């Protein structure tokens, strides 16, 4: 169950241009969070930046009772959030949403992340047990390549790409996935990032007969499944319906989702 919580900010750090990591002390979230879930954060006071901002959980420290979120400055809400100081209080609802499937039947897994979408995959890599884990992470340029120590220690193989070639492979992270699939195979691919990348990953997974989980984004209202704004098209028998990213997702099996909008 998720709760409305007022928790203390343990630390806040600028990782890259416009990218911040906030560590929050929360016994409840640290105990109940599962990789793939998110928290819905009230960034401003009162009616300032009115809606809460959904932010994925990036890392969970179950012993220290803290969790991390990594967010990108996008507008007034995230700007206010980025200016908060350690020791201050943050108002959030969580943990929310459907998490990644971490069941043991998937032993050889890959994660493919792009941009801000790499961060929810970190907690997955950290918590997925006793398997071979390969991470494919795409960034704009080398300035945005952050938390690499953590990604490295949480994965068995790590591939990096940048748009401008300033680090790793120059080009799309998809290229590295396709190349690796010529020699390797996976039981399950998890992906999070820009929609064009997700669509391409799903296409590649389908072609190779690999199961795939996608973590989707959509503009949200309540974050708890009531307002019905964060719609995403999913299959319903031979028909389709609008499911909701906040409650039915953000993680879906790729074969549930219809990517035609």
């Amino acid at each position, binding site marked *: 169950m*998720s709760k409305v919580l007022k928790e203390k900010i343990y630390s806040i750090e600028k990782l890259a241009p416009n990218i911040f990591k906030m560590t929050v002390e929360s016994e409840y979230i640290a105990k109940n969070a599962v990789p793939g879930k998110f928290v819905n954060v009230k960034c401003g006071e009162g009616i300032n930046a009115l809606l809460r901002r959904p932010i994925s959980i990036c890392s969970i420290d179950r012993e220290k009772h803290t969790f991390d979120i990594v967010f990108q400055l996008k507008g007034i809400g995230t700007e206010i959030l980025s200016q908060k100081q350690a020791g201050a209080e943050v108002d959030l609802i969580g943990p929310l949403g459907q998490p990644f499937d971490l069941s043991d039947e998937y032993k050889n897994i890959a994660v493919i992340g792009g941009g801000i979408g790499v961060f929810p995959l970190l907690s997955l890599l950290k918590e997925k047990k006793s398997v071979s884990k390969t991470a494919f992470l795409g960034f704009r340029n080398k300035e945005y390549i952050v938390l690499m120590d953590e990604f490295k220690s949480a994965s068995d193989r790590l591939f990096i790409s940048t748009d401008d070639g300033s680090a790793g492979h120059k080009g799309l992270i998809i290229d590295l996935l396709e190349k690796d699939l010529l020699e390797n195979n996976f039981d399950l691919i998890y992906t999070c990032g820009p929609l064009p990348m997700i669509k391409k990953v799903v296409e590649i997974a389908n072609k190779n007969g690999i199961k795939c989980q996608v973590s989707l984004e959509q503009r949200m209202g*309540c974050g708890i499944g009531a307002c019905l704004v964060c719609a995403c098209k999913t299959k319903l028998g031979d028909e389709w319906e609008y499911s909701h990213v906040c409650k039915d997702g953000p993680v879906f099996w790729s074969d549930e989702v219809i990517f035609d909008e």
Partner: protein
Amino acid sequence: MSNIDLSVEIAGVKFKNPVMAASGTFGFGREFADYMDLNGLGAISVKGLTLAPRPGNKPPRIAETPAGILNSVGLQNPGVEAFIKEELPFLRQFDTKIIANVAGSTIEDYCEMVEILSDADIDAIELNVSCPNVKAGCVSFGNTPGGIAEITKRVKPYCKKPLIVKLTPNVTDIKEIAIAAEDAGADALSLINTILGMAIDIHKKRPILANNVGGLSGPAVKPIAVRMVHEVSRVVKIPLIGMGGISNGDDAIEFMLAGASGVMVGTYNFIDPAACLEVVTGIESYLTKYNYSNAYDVIGKLELNG
């Protein structure tokens, strides 16, 4: 504070307090039960129902605007029969009144739904003739005195429950719409629905909402809503349920002073899932502060400046 009587009577229904969850912001209550005791609510107006299930509009369906939001959900709902079978039994576990909000694209749709719901275990029907987010019908019934009179008159014979007609603010003179609804047989009026608006992504040079336009709600609309409740309260005798940007008890008191017997909390449920109960507490505190013992000590007690 226990000796304060917060109960109000609207269209023959006694509500334990004036605070209700507004249609479209509260689903069918399930999601909120994790965060608050639904027994504390005066009523829940459920997500707008249509005769057949509706998938709703394409996303994005929401855009944040200064002190408000624009939405264009497009009445996604499971249909009136599924509501009665699958949602109503859950809601009925709680000691709160249930208002069924109905929307249609033809008058016949409305009549049929009202007839079906008249035999269901609900306390009142709210006629949504003012949803800005569906292309056919709906808002077009609500934006002329003739339109609202016709639909209210035609629905009324099928309606065995108290009939609340919900008014759109997207009109030149809301008073004449309100009078027309009253004359046609409305037992109460609720106002305001959302205000038609648009937000543009300047980088993409396109509207943010897939539907291009949507309904504005939230604190930004409150002064407009209060003014409209005030205006309508002066020209009709039936009770009013006021809404538009209520986020705390003081906001609710404004609406009550302006003439609303009930108040609905909408957008703020998204920010604070227990917002409705905060509003109840806030109303109680106000009454205590001024040594009032009854909600009616406030309702319609606005004194205008000379």
